[in-house]
C-alpha cells in the first residue's frame, strides 16, 4: 500500500534507471549537470522567485498556454508571447502523445509537422527533443518557463525538462490522472508523482528551487470548489513530503464572482492550515487562477469578454498568477497572434482593477465558511480512510467515491456526483454520490438549487446540467430553458 513517505535514495535510483531507459533521450540526463546549469540561471528566469515577488508586491502575473511540434517554431511562439503578449511567465505545453508516453507517435508527429510546414501536434514533444533541445528553449527566452501538460506518468518528462533548465512543473498524481487518463490506477499515478516530487526535492536539496503547481481546474466542468481544493491540498501535502518548497495551488474559474473569490481565499487559508498541521511552516505557497476552462463562445468579441471577466476575478481574488485563454478557444489551439491578444485583453482588465481593493474574506464569509466546511468533510474522511496517511487515504477515497471528480474520463473515478448552477450561478451539488458532505451542507445546496428550479418553472433535472455546460459558449452563465 502506498504511503505518504519520502522515497529513499536507493529506491529512487533504482526506479530512475528504468525510467531513463524508456526513450533514448533519457540516457543523456544528468541531475548533477542539471543542477550546475540551474545555478547559472539569472534571477529573472527562476519561477519560484517570480511567484514570491508577485506575492510580496501583490501582483498578478500573466501566463499563457502554448506549445508546437517544432523547436524553432516553439521558440518563435514563446518569444512572440514574451514581446507582443507581454507574458510575465512562459509555458511549454506538451503534446497529447507525450502525455500518454507514446513517444513513437510523437516522433511521427514531428516528421509530419516538418512535411506539412505547420504543427500537427497540440504541443511540444519535449521528451523526443531531450535535454539538449529543451535547453535551447530555455536559452532563447528571458522569462521563467514552466512545463504544462496532463501526464499521468511524467517521470521521464520531468527528468528531461528539469535537467534542461525549466524552473516549474505542473501536475500531480490526482489532477493529471483522473481528468487526463482512462485506465491508470490512482495508486500508480500517485507513486509516479512522488517520484517527480522527489526529483524536485533533490534539486531543492542542492540549492535549486523548482516551483510545483498541482492542476486545480480538473475537468474544468462544473467542478464544485471543495473538490478542487481538497485535491490541491492533498497534492501539496504529497509534494512537500518529497522535499518540494515552492508550491502554487490552482483553481479554475467557476463563473460566479463571489464563489470564485471565496474559493481562492478558502484554498489559501486551508492549504496553510493543513501544511502547518503536518508540520511544515517553510513552504512558499502561492495561488493561480485559471480563466474559464469550459466551452467558449465562437464569436471572438464574446470570447474576449469571457477572458476579461476571468482577468478581473483573478485580480479580485488576489491570486499571484492567472492562466490566460485566447479568443480562439472555441476552435481549439490558438495562433500566436490570438494568444497574445488574450494576454493583452487580460492585462488591460487587470490593470483597471489592480489598485482597487482585493475582496476580503469577510465580505464573502458565508461562501468561504461553506467551502471550508466542505473541504474539511472531504479531508477528514481521506485521513480516516488512510488511517492518518494522506496517500493511502486518497487511493481509498477514489475507490469509495469519497473523492469524485465530475465528468472525468478515468475508470477509477466514480463519476456519480451531479453538480449544477443555482439561480445566481454558484456551482452547487445536486447529487453528492458518496462525497462525505454533511446533511446540513447538502440541505443548503438543495435549497439553493430549488430556488432555481422554481424560478425556471421546471424540476431539477440532468437537462439543467447540459444546459449549464453549454451556457457560457451560448452567451450566458446559467443554462436557462429557451
Amino acid at each position, binding site marked *: 500500500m502506498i504511503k505518504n513517505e519520502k522515497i529513499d535514495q536507493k529506491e529512487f535510483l533504482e526506479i530512475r534507471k528504468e525510467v531513463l531507459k524508456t526513450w533514448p533521450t533519457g540516457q543523456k540526463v544528468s541531475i548533477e549537470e542539471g543542477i550546475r546549469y540551474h545555478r547559472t540561471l539569472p534571477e529573472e528566469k527562476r519561477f519560484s522567485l517570480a511567484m514570491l515577488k508577485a506575492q510580496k508586491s501583490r501582483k498578478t502575473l500573466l501566463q499563457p498556454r502554448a506549445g508546437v511540434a517544432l523547436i524553432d517554431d516553439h521558440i518563435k511562439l514563446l518569444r512572440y508571447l514574451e514581446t507582443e503578449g507581454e507574458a510575465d511567465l512562459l509555458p511549454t505545453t506538451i503534446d497529447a502523445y507525450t502525455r500518454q508516453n507514446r513517444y513513437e507517435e510523437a516522433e511521427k508527429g514531428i516528421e509530419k509537422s516538418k512535411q506539412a510546414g505547420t504543427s500537427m501536434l497540440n504541443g511540444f514533444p519535449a521528451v523526443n527533443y531531450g535535454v539538449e533541445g529543451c535547453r535551447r528553449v530555455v536559452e532563447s527566452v528571458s522569462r521563467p518557463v514552466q512545463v504544462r501538460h496532463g501526464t499521468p506518468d511524467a517521470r521521464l518528462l520531468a527528468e528531461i525538462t528539469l535537467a534542461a533548465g525549466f524552473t516549474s512543473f505542473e501536475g500531480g498524481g490526482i489532477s493529471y490522472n483522473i481528468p487526463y*487518463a482512462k485506465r491508470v490506477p490512482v495508486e500508480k499515478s500517485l507513486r509516479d508523482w512522488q517520484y517527480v516530487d522527489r526529483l524536485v526535492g533533490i534539486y531543492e536539496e542542492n540549492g535549486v528551487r523548482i516551483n510545483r503547481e498541482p492542476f486545480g481546474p480538473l475537468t474544468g466542468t462544473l467542478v464544485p470548489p471543495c473538490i478542487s481544493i481538497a485535491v490541491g491540498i492533498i497534492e501539496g501535502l504529497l509534494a512537500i513530503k518529497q522535499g518540494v518548497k515552492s508550491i502554487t495551488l490552482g483553481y479554475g474559474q467557476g463563473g460566479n464572482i463571489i464563489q470564485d473569490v471565496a474559493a481562492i481565499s478558502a484554498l489559501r487559508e486551508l492549504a496553510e492550515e493543513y501544511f502547518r498541521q503536518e508540520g511544515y511552516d517553510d513552504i512558499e505557497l502561492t495561488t493561480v487562477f485559471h480563466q474559464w476552462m469550459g466551452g467558449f463562445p465562437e464569436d471572438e468579441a464574446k470570447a474576449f469578454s469571457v477572458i476579461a471577466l476571468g482577468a478581473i476575478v483573478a485580480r479580485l481574488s488576489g491570486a499571484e498568477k492567472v492562466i490566460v485563454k485566447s479568443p480562439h478557444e472555441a476552435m481549439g489551439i490558438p495562433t500566436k497572434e490570438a494568444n497574445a491578444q488574450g494576454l493583452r485583453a487580460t492585462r488591460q482588465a487587470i490593470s483597471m482593477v489592480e489598485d482597487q481593493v482585493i475582496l476580503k474574506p469577510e465580505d464573502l464569509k458565508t461562501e468561504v465558511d461553506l467551502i471550508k466546511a466542505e473541504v474539511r468533510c472531504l479531508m477528514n474522511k481521506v485521513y480516516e480512510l488512510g488511517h492518518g496517511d494522506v496517500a493511502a487515504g486518497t487511493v481509498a477515497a477514489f475507490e469509495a467515491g469519497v473523492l469524485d471528480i465530475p465528468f*472525468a474520463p478515468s475508470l477509477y473515478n466514480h463519476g456519480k456526483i451531479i453538480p449544477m448552477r443555482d439561480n445566481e450561478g454558484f456551482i452547487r451539488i445536486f447529487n453528492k454520490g458518496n462525497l462525505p458532505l454533511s446533511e446540513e451542507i447538502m440541505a443548503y445546496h438543495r435549497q439553493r438549487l430549488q430556488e432555481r428550479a422554481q424560478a425556471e418553472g421546471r424540476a431539477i433535472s440532468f437537462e439543467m446540467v447540459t444546459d449549464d455546460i453549454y451556457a457560457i459558449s451560448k452567451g450566458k452563465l446559467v443554462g436557462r430553458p429557451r
Partner: protein
Amino acid sequence: MKKDTIILGVIGSDCHSVGNKILELVFSSEGFHVVNLGVMVSQQEFVNAAIETNAKAILVSSLYGHGEIDCQGFRDLCIEKGLDQIILYVGGNLVVGKKPFSVVEEKFKKMGFDRVFPPDVDLKKVAELLRQDIKEKFGQEAAAEEKQPDASPKKHSAAN
C-alpha cells in the same frame, strides 16, 4: 422497432470526456442504441466494437487537434475488416489551429468520412441526419431485419 446501434468514442490519445458523455445522453434519448467506448479509443477498438455489435455507424470525436493524424486510414481499416457499409461521422476541433470549416470538412471527407461536424453543431440535427443516412444505406436490410425481430437480439448487447 429495433434500435439501430451506433458506436461513440473519442479517438487517439484524446481524453476530452465531457462532450462524449453528452453525446451518449442525446443519442440515447434520440432512440439509438449507443455503445460508448469513452475516451482514448484506437481505430481498431472502434472497428472491433462495430463488428461485435453489428453497428450501423461510428461517430468519432476529436477535440485536441491530433484528429488529422489519428483518423488517417480509418475508412481503409473498416473496409479491410469487412465493414463496407458502415457510416462514418467525425466531429469536434479536428485540426490544430483555427481554419475555415470548409477546409477541414473537405480534408476529412477525402479521408472517407460521410459527414464532418464543427464543435458547436446541434446534436438533434446530427441525429436526424444519421437516421436519414441509415435509412438510405441500410433501408432494405433494416426492413428485412424487422420481419425477423428476434433474429439476432443477443448480438446487440455484446458490448454493454
